[in-house]
């Protein structure tokens, strides 16, 4: 059969979010691939040029709705860099804890999504069941389950309610036991391993050059994590380590995310111990930003997110640029797909943790 281009999408049960993957197949084998995006483009960067600085925080939540706290957090960090605002200590700890809880939630969503891709609905329901616990924690903290509107330029909106820390510790204990269940179901399952091991390896050199960041980069053996190499908030005061794997295949990326979930639990526990028991959680920022630029980088669950903001002396930003990790990982995916089979596409793309909200903006 001659080579032909097949469209996998934009309506396809496998693609989480709306995008099109055009693959050139020769029989069963993929010879080239081209992701086509833009279906979810909302003109976010143009919209924020007409909004006041605090109004942008809920908009940043909706950049990637699966992991919304990290996006409003990086926006607040960039705005604080521009305005020169110093965040109080307790607010930093609350932000870091919410970040890590959001990371667990986002990774659970990813775990739930790969189940049906590979044909197993059980892991979907287990991961969603656990994710509900974390959404409940966020609901008691800030009132919303998904898009929180919680950080503010200068701190966070409100302090943790009474008993939140007790609920948090209970949830973390329960969750760690459940993590063992997932590993039982997936890691020791030879069919899962057949679908994941030795598939789509990405060399470290390719990964760094193509701009891949996050678990996909650490799965290829590169020790790079923005929380570690370029620390922000209080990450340099905490005792934790990066989760890195050397093999670079799909199984390595899967393992890195599972290890990251456990590491996030450890970070949250340590924050609870080190957090100042009381203190201001918010500082009032200036209403208008000075003329200048601000930039902040952060480790989003999918990789490195960056916001570059230009202020022009008014109360609205002149330019706000969003660097989304999945945008770049998606542009690197044809390298990973070549010479593998069409049936491997859900496995490979699912492990990269698709989120189209941040890609298309």
């Amino acid at each position, binding site marked *: 059969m001659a080579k032909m281009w097949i469209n996998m999408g934009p309506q396809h049960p496998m693609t989480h979010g709306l995008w099109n993957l055009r693959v050139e197949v020769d029989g069963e084998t993929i010879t080239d691939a081209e992701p086509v995006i833009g279906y979810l483009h909302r003109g976010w960067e143009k919209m924020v040029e007409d909004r006041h600085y605090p109004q942008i925080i809920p908009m940043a939540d909706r950049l990637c709705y699966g992991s919304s706290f990290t996006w409003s957090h990086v926006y607040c960090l960039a705005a604080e860099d521009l305005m020169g605002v110093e965040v109080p200590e307790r607010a930093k700890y609350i932000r870091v804890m919410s970040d890590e809880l959001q990371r667990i939630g986002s990774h659970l969503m990813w775990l739930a999504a790969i189940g049906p891709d590979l*044909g*197993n609905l059980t892991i979907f329901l287990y991961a969603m069941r656990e994710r509900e616990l974390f959404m409940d924690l966020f609901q008691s903290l800030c009132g919303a389950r998904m898009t929180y509107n919680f950080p503010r330029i200068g701190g966070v909106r409100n302090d943790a309610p009474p008993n939140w820390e007790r609920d948090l510790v209970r949830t973390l204990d329960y969750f760690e036991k459940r993590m063992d269940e997932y590993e039982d179901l997936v890691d020791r399952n030879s069919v*899962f391993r057949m*679908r994941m091991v030795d598939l789509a390896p990405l060399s470290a050199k390719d990964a760094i050059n193509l701009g891949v960041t996050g678990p996909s980069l650490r799965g290829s053996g590169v020790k790079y994590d923005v929380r570690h190499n370029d620390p922000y908030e209080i990450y340099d005061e905490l005792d934790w380590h990066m989760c890195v794997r050397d093999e670079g295949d799909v199984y390595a990326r899967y393992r890195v995310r599972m290890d990251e979930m456990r590491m996030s639990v450890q970070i949250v526990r340590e924050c609870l111990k080190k957090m100042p028991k009381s203190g201001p959680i918010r500082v009032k920022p200036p209403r208008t930003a000075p003329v200048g630029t601000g930039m902040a980088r952060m480790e989003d669950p999918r990789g490195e997110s960056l916001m570059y903001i230009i202020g022009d002396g008014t109360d609205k930003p002149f330019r706000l640029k969003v660097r989304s990790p999945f945008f770049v990982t998606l542009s690197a995916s044809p390298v990973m797909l070549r010479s593998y089979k069409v049936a491997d596409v*859900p496995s490979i793309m699912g492990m990269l943790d698709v989120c189209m909200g941040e890609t298309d903006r």
Partner: protein
Amino acid sequence: MYLDLWQLLAGLVHWLMVDIIGPIFGWLSFHGIEGWLTRPETLYFITVILVVLIVFVVGMLVSITLIWQERKMLGRFMDRRGTQTGPIGLFQNFADALKTLQKEIIVPANADKLIYNAAPVIIIGTSLFLMATIPYSEGFYASDSDLSLILTFAIFSIVPFGVLLGGWASNNKYTLIGGMRAAAQLISYEIPMLLSVVSVVILAGSLSLNDIVWYQQAHIWLFIPLIIGFIVFLIAMVAEVERIPFDLPEAEAELVEGWGTEYGGLRFGLIMMSEYARGFIGSALATLLFLGGWDGPFKGIVPDGLWFLAKVFIVFGIFIWMRAALPRVRTDQILAIGWKKLLPLAVVNIFIAILFKTAGWF
């Protein structure tokens, strides 16, 4: 204690026709009809129709109950309750059937009409045909032939043909690919399945399903000496019925379309129904060949048919368990497992069976 269906129905029909309906016609002075109705050939014909009807209905009811079992059991594996319509969810199948009946049947424009219509008929027809050869207990069966084993597996193997025809006749290159893949999978798993059945036949010494069960009642349930063959048979059966982990031919996420995509409405419902009917047949065959059929304790109190059904539910429960725990296997990996791993095991199993037979242990 068992229900001898043929004798019961023969007696019933005889009583009904000769003692009740015949004399009615005689009283009405229709002696010709009375004579015709009470002839042994007519009685036999009516008995056959009634037996087939009853066995068919029981078989379909058991298949539908397997669907219910799957939904409830799969739900519990996934930490949820499963279907809830009706008491403990029993009405869900009827609700699904009613819904499927109401769907519009759309035929693709350039499809080959004859073959497009014939393919589901082949698939569901052969699956339902097999209800006739499966005995539920010593007396409850529709046909007891000396070659019922060969007949069953021969009819079982017609389905790849129907799948290929269905995929081709839909005038869609993706369903054609799906049909070819499904046929490849079904044909390649026939061979380990049949080889493990050969080992059973070697030990039991007969090709009739009833005789195989009597052999197991007299000696030992055959899954104990032929444990390898039992496992090979179960795995091959999961692949034959196209369940997860071997359901890549009908998975939407990987393949662009499966072979049955262009079928809508009742045709699609029948294709789904045939999947569960074949699941029932597969579990029933596993029970009859390896698990002792209707053999069980408390022979005087508990009817044999109930032991048979209990074992069928247990074997199907194992299939459901596999579905809950395992993801899909890729097509080339499926074929690799079938040819490279199951086939040698089945051959080893035959050697073990020959060993046991010549040593005279069983």
